[in-house]
């Protein structure tokens, strides 16, 4: 993934970041905002970034604000949005689509800022998983409180285009939205919901820069060993009971002998 790491490095340079959005050359200019270098980030943002921006076709162009390392809980609850200042204004003015990764941090104020700066831009929101149906045995169930569910709902409700993982989620979300509208929890809903297209590239994905740092498999047995019998402990228990027996019999008026000991 050398190209991906090169991108991560390049995005640290203000010059590179600004060059991405200096010219309007395509019909669809797509800005990816602060994705993480994770499996989700790779397929949602990085691979499409290359596909739509660097294949030599002139109908689309892509830009990215930053590419940060994996911290999924941080992304969900403490999203570090790199969209500030003159640089952000240039990016927003350039973009026809602004893609936000999935988060339960409140994005609605940012949406308002974006729409004020560029009313024509469309806000795209990714949904990583069905946060309405997290099972109790999934660690995410402790992260997604009712409050976070509500914030995440606001985030997609106020967007223009939502990408989900599969067609079944499109169906689920459509029904959910209808329920929320019928219950008058929310007003009308105007966004599109699409299953996210997937794209891979062997050349990009298998070109590694540092082979030596790969984790090696380690053999492990999860077979629970049988309990070890402590003979010394058993002997001491027997000895203690033999000592106690004559004392008890003396108390009861009987002399203890080997014969009458039971």
């Amino acid at each position: 993934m050398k190209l991906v790491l090169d991108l991560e490095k390049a995005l640290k340079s203000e010059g590179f970041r600004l060059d991405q959005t200096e010219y309007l050359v395509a019909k669809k200019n797509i800005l990816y905002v602060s994705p993480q270098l994770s499996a989700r980030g790779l397929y949602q943002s990085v691979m499409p970034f290359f596909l739509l921006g660097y294949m030599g076709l002139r109908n689309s162009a892509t830009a990215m604000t930053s590419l940060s390392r994996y911290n999924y809980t941080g992304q969900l609850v403490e999203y570090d949005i790199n969209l500030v200042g003159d640089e952000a204004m240039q990016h927003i003015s350039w973009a026809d689509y602004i893609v936000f990764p999935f988060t339960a941090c409140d994005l609605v104020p940012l949406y308002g800022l974006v729409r004020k700066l560029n009313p024509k831009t469309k806000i795209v929101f990714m949904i990583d998983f069905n946060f309405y149906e997290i099972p109790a045995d999934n660690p995410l169930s402790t992260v997604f409180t009712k409050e976070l569910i509500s914030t995440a709902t606001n985030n997609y409700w106020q967007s223009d285009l939502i990408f989900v993982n599969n067609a079944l989620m499109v169906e689920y979300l459509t029904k959910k939205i209808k329920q929320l509208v019928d219950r008058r929890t929310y007003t009308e809903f105007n966004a599109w919901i699409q299953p996210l297209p997937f794209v891979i590239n062997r050349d990009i994905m298998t070109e590694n820069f540092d082979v030596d740092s790969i984790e090696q498999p380690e053999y492990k047995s999860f077979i629970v060993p049988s309990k070890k019998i402590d003979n010394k402990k058993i002997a001491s228990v027997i000895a203690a009971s033999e000592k106690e027996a004559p004392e008890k019999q003396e108390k009861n008026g009987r002399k203890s002998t080997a014969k009458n000991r039971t």
Partner: protein
Amino acid sequence: MAEKAPRKIARKKTLQNIDSFKLGIVANGYNWADIAEILPQLVAAKAAHGNKVIFYIFGYVDSEESAVALEGLECYVVKPVSIIHWLKCLEQCKLNGMIIPMRKILFNATSENLNKFLESGLLGVPVIAPQMPPYSDVIVDQNNGFLYSSLDHLGKVIDLVVTDPVLCANIGLNATAYVTKEFGHSEATQKFYYEAFI
């Protein structure tokens, strides 16, 4: 006489010493319960085939959940790696198949993506996936992957692939051709993606 506890195996075994059918399972920190559900099938396969089948658990961390999910199993574990190294790590292990454990619950059916299918396919490793979306949308059973409809069926599929590695290898080749054609960088994929931005 006191029973001897089984000898703890302290040394690491190297890949070069193994000549067995290697099945991988990805643990992502959120799916230990899914892995626990298929554990009986894994343990049974190990009992039936011995060293002819080896399981690799990717993304393993020491935890109560992982201990419960893997209790009774002997396997190789690989700690979580970054996405940067992930494919290389998969390639290094030279897997023959990848099992995707997934309980038939609404969360899974509506949250699952195709990452594992694509990554495995890219490397010629066929997946053994549950017969539910999204896998049932892209996999043709015994053509570009395997689908199981129940846990018993999963057990039979594992037996099949372990005893017929040539079949598995051919399906792996089909998987590579399929994912490259349908999801690889091409003008067609670019056009499809472009139009997704409505």
